[in-house]
């Protein structure tokens, strides 16, 4: 080892060294702070990643070190090391980066349950990016047109990674809960701190559309859906309708989307009810396909107002309705900005609303209230580095297209 020209052994040795250094730093300092990723420190730390390859490229281009650091002989060990850490990450349950980890010696030494904030991961990532930039510099100064795909892939990855990592300190993700009819300008950070925003959101209306209810058969003892390992369900799309579930013929004769419950003696009935708290209910009859045993009655998923109702088929199984699933939910909002500009719009899952440099996402609602929720929960995101990440992503997409079209041609068989 360490005989010129350097090769894979040196590559793996450097990676192992960085890994061990990372463990040492982790042991002394705990996980990497995120402070050096916020402006202006991100420019400084990012500058180092850019400066090292640039310096090597400009001043040591004749050295064996340069030849090695800009070749696959350092790149493959770097990729494999990152791969190993990513696999460990995939096998270790990850804790949110906002949490502090001090429980357990192993935790403190390795920091694997917050892999992306661990020193080992960070150092190997820095090594990876230094190689990546050096390789780009090497090729760009001797550019040939057939290198287009190479350049798009490598520089796209570098730009996307660089912006994503050094932009992460400037990324703000907040959660905001707004009551219907009210205006809110305070939001919570991931750590639970309250911050005031330069914009306010007024929730005019919150709407949920739900899927029709489903019916399932559960084992009375285990509570598991039947047939075991391959549970079936029946979507009540219309009524009357018939279907088949786990060996039972099911007939739904009545489906009430908005129902209220009435209990007289030991009988439970449902009726049309269109006020707050109304719940889905179906009247179903079941016949066992083998034994011919029969049962009929109301089944409902229940909600915050009415209890849930199951139909016992026999001593082994019951017909139940799991909670209805939302088809879509959306908030009608007005966003007020400091400069007196207002933006009106609808925020829906997969359809965020942009206002004043922020993106507003529909994140959740009061799930205990279900369709009657008067609360909407938004996620607000500000990511000033996003355009650069996207530039990198689109370069990589173009590079992938290039790779597909100009994949190496067939050699003689």
């Amino acid at each position, binding site marked *: 080892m360490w005989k010129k020209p350097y090769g894979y052994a040196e590559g793996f040795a450097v990676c192992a060294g960085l890994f061990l250094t990372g463990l040492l730093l982790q042991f002394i300092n705990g996980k990497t702070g995120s402070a050096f990723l916020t402006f202006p420190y991100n420019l400084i730390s990012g500058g180092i990643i850019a400066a090292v390859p640039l310096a090597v490229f400009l001043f040591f281009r004749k050295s064996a070190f340069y030849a090695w650091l800009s070749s*696959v*002989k350092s*790149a*493959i060990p770097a*990729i*494999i090391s990152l*791969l190993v850490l*990513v*696999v460990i*990450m*995939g*096998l*270790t*349950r*990850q804790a949110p980066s906002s949490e502090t980890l001090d429980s357990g010696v192993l935790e403190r030494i390795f920091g694997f349950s917050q*892999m*992306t904030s661990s020193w080992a991961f960070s150092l190997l990532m820095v090594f990876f990016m230094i190689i990546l930039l050096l390789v780009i510099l090497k090729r760009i100064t001797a550019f040939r047109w057939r290198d287009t795909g190479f350049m798009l892939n490598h520089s796209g990855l570098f730009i996307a990674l660089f912006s*994503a990592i050094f932009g992460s300190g400037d*990324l703000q*993700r907040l959660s905001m809960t707004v009551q219907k009819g009210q205006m809110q300008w305070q939001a919570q950070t991931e750590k639970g701190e309250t911050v005031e925003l330069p914009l306010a959101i007024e929730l005019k209306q919150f709407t949920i559309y739900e*899927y029709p209810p*489903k019916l399932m058969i559960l084992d009375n003892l285990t509570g598991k859906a039947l047939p075991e390992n*391959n*549970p*079936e*369900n029946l*979507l009540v799309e219309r009524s009357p309708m018939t279907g088949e579930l786990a060996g039972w013929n099911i007939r739904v004769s009545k489906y009430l989307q908005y129902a209220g419950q009435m209990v007289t003696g030991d009988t439970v009935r449902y009726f049309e009810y269109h006020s707050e708290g109304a719940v889905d209910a179906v009247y179903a009859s079941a016949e066992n396909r083998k034994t011919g045993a029969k049962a009929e009655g109301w089944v409902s998923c229940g909600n915050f107002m009415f209890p849930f109702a199951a139909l016992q088929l026999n001593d082994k199984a019951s017909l139940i309705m799991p909670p209805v*699933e*939302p*088809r*879509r*939910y959306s908030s009608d909002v007005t966003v007020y900005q400091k400069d007196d500009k207002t933006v009106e719009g609808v925020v*829906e*899952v*997969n*359809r*965020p609303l942009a206002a004043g440099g922020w993106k507003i*996402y529909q*994140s959740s609602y009061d799930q205990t209230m279900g369709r009657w929720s008067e609360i909407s929960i938004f*996620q607000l*995101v500000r*990511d000033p580095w*996003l355009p650069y*990440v*996207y530039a990198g*992503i689109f370069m*990589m*997409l173009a*590079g*992938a*297209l290039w*790779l*597909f079209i100009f*994949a*190496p*041609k*067939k*050699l*003689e*068989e």
Partner: protein
Amino acid sequence: MTWDWFKFFAVAAALFWFLGAWFALREKGVKKAVILTVTGLLVFFSFIVGMWISLERPPLRTMGETRLWYSFFLPLAGLITYVRWRYRWILSFSSILALVFICINIFKPEIHNKTLMPALQSPWFAPHVIVYMFSYAMMGAAAVFALYLLARPDKINRGVMSLCDNLIYVGLAFLTVGMLFGALWAKEAWGHYWSWDPKETWAAATWLGYLVFVHFRDNFPNSRYKTALVIILVSFVLLQVCWYGVNYLPSAKGISVHAYS
């Protein structure tokens, strides 16, 4: 269209594919092979379209549904490889693989329910999963081929290695596009393009694995074939974890936002 119809469409499509594969094995059967394979693909795709219409959503959510696309893309990938590089046996090979997944869907179907949660209701949904399934088909073909070559080392030569290269290059191109489409979609749906969700973590691992292969082959185009083949297999294991393994990993239980099926 319901799953009850699947066996008829699948058997008909498979018959066309195997007939096409048979013609492909013969010297002058190129045209017939292509026409028959395309016909099989059309038959199979008409079932997918039928399911799409009757489910009122693209059939891409459950494992059974993704296997449906997998069995469609394997012969398609085979056909593209055949037309582009004329490997005569590739259609037999892709047809057999497709048949395996058809059989799984016939004999061990999984819940095929109609509901689609709001996060999945996006124009990105179909391209993201379809591109990934196409890539998986390529990588699957490469992995089976690599396994065969490791069992029969006497068959390893430059020609077959270049076939592996071609499959992986095309597969990696699609893998990259699938991952980046996922990032663009995640930004719209969850507010960030990359969150190290367990599925994302394993997707990154898979991607890095194939990057190792590509760089390794770049350095050793004419030697160390067995190591290259082993890298294909290791990467394919990572791909399996990413595809469905995460559903069973204790480290991912209950926290993956990718848990749908």
